[in-house]
């Protein structure tokens, strides 16, 4: 394989969002260092400004249909990548808004916090464009790098340190698995680019290699049996980082999973479908059953997140165009509901200083708005109409039933009922139990903004999903001709300007 390293201006355009964000990252860092008296809020809004500009740039790409590949197909910018990048940027913006109040708890390095958040976002944006095994490894590690620091940002807090250590050790272990898997796959096929890999004979080495890669990505999305870091890390990490961790890396990892399974491995779908089905059933069942026993809301959402990933994997197990649409759509609904729920958690944690579910008692009397918002977010996660989560779940089930995955759907449906139990336990605390302390809870502006965005997203997508469905469907057009092995190579992407 030859790399053509000639970059034209039009090629650079494809990289524009990432290049711009990199530049902006430096600006944030320089501003933080140069102006000693700068208030951290200003840095936060500065970061958000950069992210919004990047978002606008991506929106322009999406509208004008700018797509293409770079660096010998290492980097691909297609509508799928744009969809995922937009989700990551949205999540990052919301997380920065969430962080503004929380950052006061850090006694030092407040400015670098935003730098690290945006840097992770940048890494994840690259991840969504990764189109070969090398860029997969590099971008994945780049994205995780920032998180290692962020998770243990509360330096004097034992739980945060423990979380960071756990995350780091298991993360490095996963990276090792990934590198080994990549080497096996490269050894067997002699290829790195996903699209060129399809059609390879499934030798033992190749299968083991892909299993190892799946294990590493399973670690990222937190699917059972690679979930063990999730509860403690979510619990110990600073809450905005937990919120970030609960959505953005999963979204980015799913972009890679889609490219890997739907493009590189499209020929032996029957083999990996079983693997995904098993991971999905285990994740849903384990996550939901263990979540019942949780007394801490962050841990509850950690386990519910494991279960949600199990739900998303149903769409991957379907392995069709519609399955991928449903994954994209589901992740979008999950983004709003999950970040909204974390915003409520932070508002309460700021007032009460605790994340225990018992402290949510009588929240309806203390702050009807927060209680209502939490109700909506939790019910959306549970999949109750007319909220976004319901449409997402239904879409996934419809995609799966078309492929005849009856057992998987049955397990998924039963799990909806199980999950409803623990979400309703929180609702019971908020609405039915009497408050232990009836002082009203104040919400600050940025948190309120995140909650409003979450509510708007959850309700609008739930009541009128058509534009969002269309967007998801348009983003996965590249998978629409994945019917058989013959048609498994995606159509040649015309480079922009060529």
């Amino acid at each position, binding site marked *: 394989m030859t790399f053509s390293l000639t970059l034209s201006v039009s090629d650079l355009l494809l990289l524009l969002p990432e290049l711009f964000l990199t530049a902006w990252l430096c600006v944030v860092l320089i501003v933080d260092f140069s102006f000693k008296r700068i208030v951290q809020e200003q840095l936060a809004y500065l970061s958000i400004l950069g992210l919004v500009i990047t978002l606008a740039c991506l929106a322009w790409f999406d509208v004008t249909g700018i797509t293409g590949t770079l660096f010998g197909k290492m980097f691909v910018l297609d509508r799928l990548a744009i969809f995922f990048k937009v989700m990551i940027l949205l999540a990052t913006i919301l997380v920065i808004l969430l962080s503004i109040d929380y950052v006061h708890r850090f006694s030092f390095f407040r400015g670098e916090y935003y730098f690290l958040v945006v840097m992770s976002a940048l890494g994840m944006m690259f991840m969504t464009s990764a189109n070969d095994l090398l860029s997969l490894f590099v971008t994945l590690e780049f994205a995780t790098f920032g998180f290692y620091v962020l998770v243990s940002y509360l330096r004097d807090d034992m739980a945060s340190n423990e979380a960071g250590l756990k995350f780091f050790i298991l993360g490095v272990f996963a990276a090792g698995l990934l590198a080994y898997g990549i080497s096996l796959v490269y050894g067997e096929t002699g290829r790195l680019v996903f699209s060129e890999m399809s059609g390879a004979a499934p030798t033992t080495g190749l299968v083991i290699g892909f299993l190892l890669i799946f294990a590493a990505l399973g670690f990222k999305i937190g699917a059972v049996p690679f979930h063990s870091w999730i509860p403690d890390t979510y619990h110990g990490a600073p809450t905005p980082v937990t919120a970030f961790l609960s959505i953005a890396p999963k979204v980015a990892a799913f972009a890679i999973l889609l490219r890997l399974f739907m493009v590189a491995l499209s020929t032996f779908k029957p083999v990996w479908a079983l693997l995904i089905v098993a991971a999905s059933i285990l994740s849903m069942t384990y996550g939901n059953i263990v979540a019942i026993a949780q007394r801490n809301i962050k841990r509850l959402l950690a386990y519910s997140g494991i279960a949600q990933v199990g739900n998303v994997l149903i769409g991957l197990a379907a392995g069709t165009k519609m399955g991928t649409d449903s994954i994209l759509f589901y992740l979008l609904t999950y983004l709003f509901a999950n970040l909204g729920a974390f915003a409520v958690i932070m508002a309460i944690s700021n007032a009460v200083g605790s994340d225990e579910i018992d402290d949510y008692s009588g929240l309806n009397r203390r702050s009807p708005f927060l209680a209502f918002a939490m109700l909506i977010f939790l019910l959306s996660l549970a999949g109750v109409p007319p909220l976004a989560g319901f449409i997402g779940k239904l879409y996934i089930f419809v995609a799966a039933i078309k492929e005849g995955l009856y057992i998987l759907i049955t397990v998924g449906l039963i799990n909806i009922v199980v999950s409803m139990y623990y979400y*309703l336990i929180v609702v019971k605390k908020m609405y039915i139990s009497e408050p232990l302390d009836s002082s009203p809870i104040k919400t600050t502006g940025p948190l309120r903004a995140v909650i409003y965005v979450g509510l708007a997203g959850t309700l609008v997508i739930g009541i009128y999903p*058509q534009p969002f469905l269309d967007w998801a469907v348009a983003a996965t057009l590249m998978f629409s001709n994945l019917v058989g092995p013959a048609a498994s190579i995606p159509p040649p992407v015309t480079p922009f300007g060529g």
Partner: protein
Amino acid sequence: MAEYTLLIILFAPFAGALALIFVSNRQVSLVRGIAAGSAFVSLIASVYLFYAYDAVKGGFQFIQRIEWSRQLGISLHLGVDGIGTPLVLASAILLFAGIFVSWHIKDRMKEFYIWILILAAATIGVFMSLDLFFLYFFYEMSVIPMYLLLGMWGSHTKKYLEMTDTEGLRQRDSVGFIFNFGANSKEYAAMKLVLFLSAFAVAALMGILLIYKFSGLNTFDILILREQAHFSGPLATLIWLLIFFGFASIAPIWPLHSWSPVGHAAAPAATSMLHAGVLMKLGHFSIIRVAFEILPETTRELMPIAAVLCVFSIIYGGLVAYYAKDTKYVIGYSSSSHMGYVFLGMAALDYISLSGAVIYMFAHAMATGMLFAMAGWVYDQTHTRDIPSLGGLSNRMPFISAAFVIGCMASIGMPGTVNFIAEVMIIVGSWNKYPFQVVVAVLGIVLTMAYLFKMMRGLFYGSMAEKYSHSHDAVTVIDRLPLLIMITVSISFGIFPGHLYSVVRSGVDPLIARITKVVPVAEHPMMNSPHAASPLVPLPASREAIAKVTPR
């Protein structure tokens, strides 16, 4: 304007709920005004719907179709036939009455009205959905408001309140959700209701997804599916069982009934009214709409299951109601017993009996609505639902006790109330096919008399405990209005059933003809006569008349 009737009925309560979000809880009269106003709009529109429905033309009318999702083949497809129309009317009446029954709620009134409006709107939505997706959508949407209504404004049982050890209470609160120790807290009732209904709803959803897949039509539209989808063999049986038991749990059919009386008992009055009055009918209605319409052959084969189970429903519910000591348990179990009659009427698959079943749903909504409203009133005044400790309240509450007598009469099925007509039709219509069940049903009526009279005597007659001497009667117009509405509806349709009957028949006839593949031998005289809406047409009570219209 007229073609938007369904949208008005459906969205007026939603709009009311939305408007209430922006009103402060302190503006009591504004809150009440918005709630009552939106319910009133819905009521007026549904009365218009009921009388504007063209029974001669039949079929689905007032159809609205709004594209919702191309990829999934979903559209907001609304329309009512002769079966949905009376149920929409019943829901709107009970919602309007329920707003007034809960007029004096002190705690978080605004939120109460929001949830009750959403609950009622969701049930109305089910009754007019012609799309499987939206049927499920509204069905599931009605469950969560129930949780909050029961949990926030409900009441514990006496047994639970009598538990004094705090440690025990705590334990029962936490573990009790799964292992209830015989003392039902309202939280337990609410959780049980939601989990039970959701568990069976997902079974129904599985059935719906199977219909979607194996019809191969890529649509959830009931009208398209019933024309073009054909299911047979084990698959049809599986789908039918999933749909039937999924929806029968809310009906509630024995042995899936246990959530229902517990839920009734815990719920505040207006919620019990809607719950027993219309929510339970979602089950029957959804079975008719989905299983009867899309799987007619399988329905013919498997409906005897309902005929078997309804016997247990009738007898078991009646006996428990007789021995229950709690007013709401009595009415709750009586409701699940009475729902057995509807299943009997449905199981016979006969023109008369299914029409009777649909009219019974309407009639039962009024009768049980009254009883729950009055049980709620008595509870508000005395703070107990324990029948043995009550008594002699007729001195303090002459109006309520008189209305209660009427409610009991309606519930028993006295001639002059619409319940009578419905009961007679069910009994007469299913006699040919299920004589044993009919005997049980008649015995069930005797049982109904027994427990209702027992409760009436226990509440209103005999000697009164001193501590209840300060209880009040319903004197103001606001307090009496809901009862008067329901009594008026029940009696006026009892005396003038003509339009109700012809509307229901227009919905039932094509359905039964499809299922039994037999067109009515002689079209019933009422259907085509110029006096179709004439109130004085006698009921088809004679054997000859039935023999003519009942296909063998």
